[in-house]
């Protein structure tokens, strides 16, 4: 374009100096921190698997899944997982019956009806419910809910599935309500306004527009809550009893998988014994069920997400 102007005489020394040690080692150290979580998973899978396999060398897998009796500590010993599974399912179903309607209704109220101020007060209170230690819930089940249950059904024992199930339900309400509310709040107002413009009431908008639109998030919250109820330990240990019992009667004492693991851990069991092995076999069953449910929840919320 125009004639080349002379070059500046300024010189920059940009050659590499010493690279700081921190910039060399920190990425490695940080990577090691991140790999702890991977090692944890490997550790969980490896210990559960290896101990379960050696357990099945002594107790045949056919018995574990075939027998209907669980009495690993008392002779004659029997290792059928079904009573523990049914106990776990009974608790979980009661909890879901309590938590799903109440959690979902709370979510609808907070998302569709409540003023911003009410929401700001109520949400943190519900979150407190999620932060209460489970041992505290156990105490509450035993000393508050059980007497109520027994006054209604006098034949009920001190330890029963119903009280524990109700309290597990109370514990998972905030999980359902806050995750569902998040999903509903993400539904754009344009959808709501369209329905209001057609003369729909608030209830009609909530149930016919918002809930269907947020369904994947809502279902995912149910599945996660389900998984949480299955893994819950202290409430059932304290309030549901320790009698492995293949029953559907919520007024009976039962034992869940988690409560069994606690019971056997409280005793002094020799390392390598069959009793020691049961911890891992039952733990493995629990781990697989919750893992499948958690993956299902992730799949549901991704696969069926409404695109707005």
């Amino acid at each position, binding site marked *: *374009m125009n004639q080349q*102007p*002379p070059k500046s005489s*300024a*010189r920059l020394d*940009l050659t590499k100096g010493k690279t700081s040690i921190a910039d060399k080692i920190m990425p490695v150290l940080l990577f090691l921190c991140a790999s702890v979580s991977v090692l944890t998973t490997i550790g969980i899978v490896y210990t559960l698997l290896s101990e379960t396999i050696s357990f099945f060398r002594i107790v045949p897998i056919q018995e574990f899944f075939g027998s209907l009796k669980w009495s690993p500590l008392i002779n004659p010993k029997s290792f059928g997982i079904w009573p523990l599974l049914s106990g776990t399912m009974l608790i979980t179903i009661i909890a879901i019956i309590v938590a799903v309607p109440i959690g979902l209704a709370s979510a609808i109220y907070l998302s569709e009806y409540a003023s911003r101020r009410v929401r700001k007060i109520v949400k943190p209170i519900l979150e407190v419910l999620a932060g209460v230690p489970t041992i505290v819930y156990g105490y509450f089940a035993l000393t508050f809910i059980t007497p109520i249950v027994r006054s209604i059904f006098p034949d009920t024992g001190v330890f029963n599935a119903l009280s524990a199930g109700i309290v597990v339900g109370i514990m998972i309400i905030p999980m359902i309500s806050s995750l569902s509310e998040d999903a509903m709040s993400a539904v754009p107002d344009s959808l709501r306004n369209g329905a209001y413009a057609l003369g729909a009431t608030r209830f009609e908008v909530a149930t016919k527009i918002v809930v269907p639109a947020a369904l994947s998030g809502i279902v995912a919250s149910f599945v996660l809550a389900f998984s949480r109820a299955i893994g819950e330990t202290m409430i059932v240990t304290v309030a549901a009893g320790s009698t492995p019992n293949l029953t559907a009667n919520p007024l009976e004492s039962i034992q869940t998988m988690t409560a069994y693991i606690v019971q056997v851990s409280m005793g002094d069991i020799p390392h390598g014994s069959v009793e020691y092995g049961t911890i891992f076999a039952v733990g493995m069953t629990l781990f697989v069920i919750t893992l499948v449910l958690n993956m299902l929840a992730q799949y549901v919320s991704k696969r069926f997400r409404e695109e707005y």
Partner: protein
Amino acid sequence: MSTTTAAPQVTETTKSVDFKTIIDIKDMDLYYGTYHALKKVNLTIPEKAVTAFIGPSGCGKSTLLRTLNRMNDMIPNTKIEGLVDIAGTDIYSNEVDVETLRKKVGMVFQQANPFPKSIYDNVAYGPRLHGIKNKAQLDEIVEQSLKQAALWNEVKDFLKRSAFSLSGGQQQRLCIARALAVNPEILLMDEATSALDPISTLKIEELTQELKNKYTIVMVTHNMHQAARISDQTVFFLNGEVVEFDQTDKLFSNPSDKRTEDYITGRFG
């Protein structure tokens, strides 16, 4: 009415000829993945002067600015070909230390971006990075930098206050002070006044006239009038190409390319 009357008026102060080249860009291409963002750029930038990059948004002017201190390195899949020579060093050669380069080529961003620290700690951030720990020395650097950024008188009594307590214009001058504190040769300004009110903008424009006595300033501006007011050389970009660069008064009064003329007379952009 002739279209050229709309062209920005060039002020007297910017007329000057005997510059030396400090940045020399030859046949440079830049790709973001497969997108060809800068095409065969050839450009020289004069020392101790203000060079303004103008052009419609998305034309590559900010991208070119960021190649000068290698801030584009952090964007994945960026590929650069050709030569970018600053004061005799090819800054993309393997021997170059990026951190030292950025120390020598400072940058001020579109949005003032102070750290959530005190005014003092903001200015001292750079010197501390480069190993200055001596309190008296830091005090001296902070004071000098704030004076150069014309902020000293406004803040000298509360250096310990949070940088967020300053107004937008003050924050931007703080960012200039922070950039000056590491003693750069070149100062890049990426639309540094676009988020500011007219009075703050004026202050920073005046500041650039002070600073160019000591530093080479390269600025991107969305405002042609600003380029005309304060720059010595103007570079016009369009679609990733340098259409034309020349002394500011010449480029605005007598552009050699039709596209430049169309742009500065407001036919597009």
